[in-house]
């Protein structure tokens, strides 16, 4: 199991496009992805779930990944956050 905390840095936060990107990336790997905002937990492979977080700019989210390819999954997701979902 791997765990990391990220800050959402793009201006609009996890709106439709970044949420879709994140879910698609998570789905490309077998490992399960859980995203926590405070004590709210959603499935990282679910676009609707991610949107339900209503995570705006500056929100900190905890990402917990578990499964055989968890390392690759975490790397791919980390890249999305650091590149601000290619937005700004």
């Amino acid at each position, binding site marked *: 199991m791997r765990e990391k905390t990220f800050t959402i840095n793009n201006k609009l936060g996890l709106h439709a496009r970044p949420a879709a990107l994140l879910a698609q990336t998570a789905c490309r790997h077998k490992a399960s992805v859980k995203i926590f905002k405070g004590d709210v937990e959603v499935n990282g492979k679910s676009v609707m779930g991610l*949107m339900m977080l*209503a995570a705006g700019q500056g929100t900190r989210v905890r990402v917990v990944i578990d499964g055989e390819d968890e390392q690759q999954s975490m790397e791919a997701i980390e890249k999305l956050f650091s590149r601000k979902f290619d937005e*700004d």
Partner: protein
Amino acid sequence: MIIIKGVPASPGIAIGRAYVLEDEEIVVSRQEISPERVRSEVKRFKQALERTHLDLDAAEARVLRTLGKEHAKLIDAHRLILKDPLITKEVTQRILQERVNAEFALSETLERVNQAFEKIEDEFFRDRRHDLFDVGKRLLEHLLRKERKPLSALREPAILIARNLLPSDTLHLREARVLGFATDLGGKTSHTALLAQSLEIPAVVGLSDASHQVKPGDMVILDGNQGLVIISPGPEALQRYEKAQVKEKKEERALEVLRGLPCETADGKRVELLANLDTLEDARTIGALQPDGIGLFRTEFLYLNRTSAPEEEEQVEVYSRVVESLSSLPVIIRTADIGGDRLSDLGLEGPKEETNPFMGLRGIRLFLRYPELFKTQLRAILRAAIKGRVKILLPMVSSVGELKSARRLLTQAQAELVQEGHVFESPVEMGMMVEIPAAILLLDFMLEEIDFVSLGTNDLIQYLLAVDRVNEHVSHLYDPFHPAVLRVLHMTVEAVHKKGRWVSVCGEMASDPRAVPLLLGVGVDAFSVSPRMFLKIKQTLRTLKAAEVQSLFQRALVQPTSEEVHRLLDER
């Protein structure tokens, strides 16, 4: 006879029998599933998912064909939702664990998600649940095997009445023999309305409960000009509308023959007749009208309903497509006239709330405040200009300083592009909208900075007469025939021609057959009109004599009231 008033979405009159597309509330009941049937219940759900995917594929192919890429994005979003584990996993789990039927498991899941979304304060995030419902509903319909009656089942020409038309329904409109349609929901710019306009079938939307009031087979009159639906019309109304319909058809045929004829007055003066372009969809139909060019290409649509500003490449693609589709005709592209309230759509922080947005941060003012936005659009327009004849038009200009700033940015953008290896054969002309009275008073100085002028009569009249057209208490004071309006038109044309420049009219006044004699009389060089009115205005211009309307305008200019201006027009 019942008359329901809605929003006119596409002009024309249709008379016929109603075909009501049912859209009843779906009632889902909870049913226990025996342990041995649980597996097959899950399978049934998976099949419904599969069928919905197929629906989306079919809808996408059709949308791409008839409406284009922009509209197809919605279907992409729906596909993503359909794959969402929040639906697929949770519903499956509920079926397995609670041993309930798939419909119930699905509606419980949707309800849970809905509750979660309703708590979200941010409106944008909260509204995403509508997409979820759309998809959820399709799924439920498949599970209940209660598919909507397909439009292809339509045997005879009919008027379609529906609560709402899904994109997948509207795609059949062309094949099915739909005379016109009316919906309870929707606005003037909804997908369905735009589609009706491009298919040229009458439509009324926003009727609130027409789909309940109209019964299948009812005789119905659809008045797309006024936005009316008349159920079981009396003989008098029927006769009146039949007459109007015949007249409309006759006029249409009379206009058709005008297509190939030149736009010149009865005494042989050639007048440039241009078309206004609001959306990409219109670009295709405009070519068939054979205009002398596009007098006003509004680019606001590129900046609406999004989350970040349109990038240069996206804009270049859009402008180039228009320029290329009109081969060698000139295209005047107006830089976006968006207001401060739209900045959040572009991922920017705007003014909190403007009490008077009409006089607020919009048009050139907004772009000079956000020069990066402006420059991106200027670069994109310049790049499209390489592929054809393009001119740039600036909205909401009120001072010489604004023109100088815009010119500086334009020169800068062009220099950058040249450095990047682009070749410009001739300079790209820059013009301004005349819509703020101050610009007219200073036009002699303004003309030093620009190459041409376009009269935006809608805003000009509002600012000149201090009348907000959408304020019901004063909207009757909005008056294109007000002598003061005629005087500023006169001042504008005089000043422009004195400097040897060119002036067109692109506001609604140019598309009003009654105002055309005055505009021709004041001496504008070009009319830029809505595609819908194009042939009508051509017809009007061809009946007028330039010399006659010139003296008519001189007389109108010295009238004290618009009543007297109207009397002059009637006496003609």
